């Protein structure tokens, strides 16, 4: 930003006369946009379809009666509506998106192009195997890359996202224990874990036993060992952990877990920090999910779709969910039922075979980088995070001193005196044109601010981001609390009332008369 533009924007803030109500409620490029249900007209349609000639229906007299209530819009209305909605979003395409543990990296467009090739996008999962050999080859190649990168002998590809991969892993572990004739009841989860870890363990019938951290932000190995016994099915650890730190005693942890006869599950959400430099198998891990939408750049799409393949050690491989992909006499084939070598499989976790569209994108990403580029990814991701740490540690309060991995954790001590919360600070970033970092997570520090820049940010971008944070931190310390409490001011909507939303949920549009009636 030049000094000239900064001067101009400062003047606008200071002069209240400039804040005028517009006739439309729009503010320049910020356009108000009603719901599609408030824009439709009966009979209008954005798709030209012929009306089928009369024919004898075979619906058994169950024809839908009455209107569905869908609005009628033309194509230009629809295109404008969704374009305007898109403009109310922040995205990695528009700027640095430093959400810790989310790995918001650049999403290459080549991947989008290739996933849309008719040979991948326009094939049916139940076509005869002879007509999908290329698709199976893609899956096989993806599996080879992921197995090689993790050092694990098997990979389950069907899980729909990371949390689904966790289910797959914990189910496989339970199946392996049952095959040994053991019924263990607890899963150990560090305090710093993602919420999905305890939710997954509980969903699989385990009680969750929380393991405390030590003063350096890592698993307290002593506390862990005290909890390890023959009733523990698994330990679920994220490594690097959600404090952005590598579990430096991981080999000892793995040995202790194995000595207790338990399995070592790793949440691979943070694999981006070590891809190409560390193979999880070498850390003693038995099972790890990979978020293709994190490390391997498949787009987050505003909340999905994801893909959560699970790498499995030999001890868990027999329990991998269906389908299995194998090399047969006529080429690649899918084993879709429990039989032969797959008779111990835990069964099916999802319809069909997995997130093919994501596989194609992830493979294009890996092939583009190659072994050398992927190693560089980890190195640059860690370098970028440490650079931000070095630039910011005297301005914000670093939770754990020393080097970090791909993300850096701060807490709210630097805001204490100022009467500003982590939320206020995050909202002020929005006015500066940045998406906030992950807030209030992990739970092990007060008012967490977790920053993950990823490797796809340039040094200039990091410098600008760090400069902005330094300025905000200085403003916070100087007692300018108002600016933080009022933030954000320059977004399509300012702070939204989440309490009201939850107290009286309005989860769908209703015609006004019906909505009023419902309120009475």
């Amino acid at each position: 930003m030049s000094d000239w533009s900064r001067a101009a924007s400062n003047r606008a803030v200071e002069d209240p006369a400039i804040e005028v109500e517009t006739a439309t409620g729009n503010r320049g490029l910020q356009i108000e946009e009603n719901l599609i249900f408030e824009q439709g007209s009966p009979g209008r349609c954005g798709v030209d379809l012929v009306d089928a000639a009369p024919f004898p229906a075979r619906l058994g007299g169950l024809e839908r009666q009455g209107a569905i209530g869908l609005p009628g819009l033309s194509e230009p209305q629809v295109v404008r509506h969704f374009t305007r909605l898109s403009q109310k979003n922040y995205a990695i395409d528009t700027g640095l998106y430093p959400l810790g543990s989310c790995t918001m990296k650049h999403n290459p467009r080549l991947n989008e192009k290739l996933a849309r090739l008719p040979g991948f996008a326009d094939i049916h999962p139940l076509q005869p195997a002879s007509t999908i050999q290329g698709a199976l080859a893609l899956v096989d190649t993806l599996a080879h890359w992921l197995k090689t990168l993790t050092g694990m002998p098997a990979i389950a590809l069907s899980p729909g996202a990371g949390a689904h991969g966790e289910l797959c892993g914990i189910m496989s572990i339970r199946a392996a224990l049952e095959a040994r004739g053991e019924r263990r009841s607890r899963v150990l989860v560090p305090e710093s874990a993602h919420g999905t870890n305890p939710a997954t363990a509980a969903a699989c019938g385990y009680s969750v036993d929380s393991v405390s951290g030590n003063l350096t932000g890592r698993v307290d190995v002593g506390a862990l060992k005290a909890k390890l016994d023959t009733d523990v099915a698994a330990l679920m650890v994220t490594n690097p952990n959600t404090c952005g730190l590598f579990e430096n005693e991981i080999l000892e942890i793995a040995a202790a877990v194995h000595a207790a006869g338990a399995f070592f599950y790793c949440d691979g959400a943070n694999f981006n920090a070590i891809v190409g430099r560390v193979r999880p198998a070498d850390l003693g891990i038995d099972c790890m999910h990979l978020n293709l939408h994190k490390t391997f750049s498949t787009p987050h799409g505003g909340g999905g779709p994801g893909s959560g393949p699970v790498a499995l050690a030999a001890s868990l491989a027999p329990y991998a969910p269906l389908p299995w992909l194998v090399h047969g006499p006529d080429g690649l084939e899918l084993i879709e039922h429990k039989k032969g070598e797959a008779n111990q499989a835990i069964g099916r976790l999802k319809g069909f075979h997995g997130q093919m569209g994501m596989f194609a994108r992830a493979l294009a990403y890996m092939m583009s980088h190659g072994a050398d580029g992927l190693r560089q990814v980890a190195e640059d991701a860690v370098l970028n995070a440490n650079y931000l740490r070095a630039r910011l540690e005297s301005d914000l309060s670093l939770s754990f001193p020393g080097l970090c991995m791909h993300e850096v954790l701060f807490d709210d001590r630097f805001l204490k005196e100022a009467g500003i919360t982590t939320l206020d600070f995050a909202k002020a970033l929005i006015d500066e044109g940045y998406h906030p970092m992950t807030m209030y997570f992990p739970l092990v520090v007060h008012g967490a601010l977790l920053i993950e820049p990823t490797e796809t940010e340039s040094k200039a971008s990091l410098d600008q981001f760090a400069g902005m944070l330094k300025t905000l931190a200085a403003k916070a310390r100087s007692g300018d609390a108002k600016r933080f409490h009022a933030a954000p001011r320059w977004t399509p909507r300012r702070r939204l009332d989440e309490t009201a939303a939850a107290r009286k949920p309005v989860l769908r549009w209703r015609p006004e008369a019906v909505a009023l009636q419902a309120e009475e």
Partner: protein
Amino acid sequence: MRYLPLTDPDRREMLAAIGVDSIDALFADVPSAARFDGLINLPRAMGEIEVERAMSRMASRNVAAGSVPFFIGGGAYRHHIPAAVDHLIQRGEFLTSYTPYQPEMAQGTLQYLFEFQTQVALLTGTEVANASLYDGATACAEAVMMANRLTRRRKAVLSGALHPHYREVCETYARFVGFEVAAADPAPGGDEDLTGRVGPDTSCIVVQNPDFFGEIRDYSELARNCHDVGALLVVVVTEILSLGAIVPPGEMGADIVAAEGQSLGNALNFGGPHLGLFASRDKFVRQMPGRLAGQTVDVDGRRGWVLTLSTREQHIRREKATSNICTNSGLCALAFTIHLALLGETGLTRLARLNHAAAVSLAERLEGIPDVRLLSRTFFNEFALQLPRPAAAIVDALAEKGVLAGIPVSRLYPSRPELAGILLVAATETAMSEDMDHFERALTEALS
């Protein structure tokens, strides 16, 4: 590497600022025994041209549905997707944004999720829908688990005409989550009567409409039977477009609707990503899995949207969450919403009618072939044929002739020889009359 902006001078300068002399120093916490030195044994970086060549070669070894007469359904349907859909979902502000945790920066995502939820509720005839799950099969398992929570019972009864993948996913979850599923025998022909299966320990009955074999049924009475003994009715819909033509599950008394939404806006994608739809009653909303977008106001009193009721979810409730789901199918939901916005009431009902017309026309042709019997008395755009010989061999033979003829039921029920002659055939608006001619001729030849 084209995606990595740091230059070597940048890296040196940054290492100096950090105060270390090498990248390796940043990885000091990794135990030396676990460090992988050198390059992992995989190919080196490639340019766009090379990657495109390699992957195009793989793609060309597949028979794309659009390149041949194509009649496969079974829970994934090939429909025409208007060009605007794919253009709009590729806008970077949608494609490359995260879950809308900061609502002021994600009103676009939140508003379309609110529109999506409304569309799904309208289509299914229910009161409330969530912001999507992974796919129809996992939505079905989540529906059963929600019914278990609501009724405090642990036994679900599954129709024998439920998609086998949905049944199998429920069975997997049941084994590990700890509940019981009793699956009825496969039931082609629409005669299944589950009334006698509902008991005081039943949490829910799960049926599918149109069912796996194509049949359309009225489940109103079954809903009443369930409610009489405190059980819930879960209705699965694997072809959401059918609800443009037939009575929706909500109007039949369904308590939970678990559906696959791929048909609107989403390509076949070899089975994923697809789009799990999940809808229910207002009074059950606090037991629903997955994200919900809700309406609220900002500090200036202007209408806006947020993610709400998140105390159900894993990031707040951890081990007490209603589901462990986090990432769902956001972009697929957007594609669905845009396609349905383009169609509107008129387009949806027309499209549904075109599908039904195509299927009726094809069924009439095929049931005229000697020894071929139409098993489905009613159907929407997919029906079951009884062939005089195992359907799997016929499908392979037709594939050789360039016709993708449908699904041999034996592929999904390999241990049920009595079903080996059944072929499931789907016809959507994309099936042309000449495709049907081609299919009819090829099937006649294969059977003669």
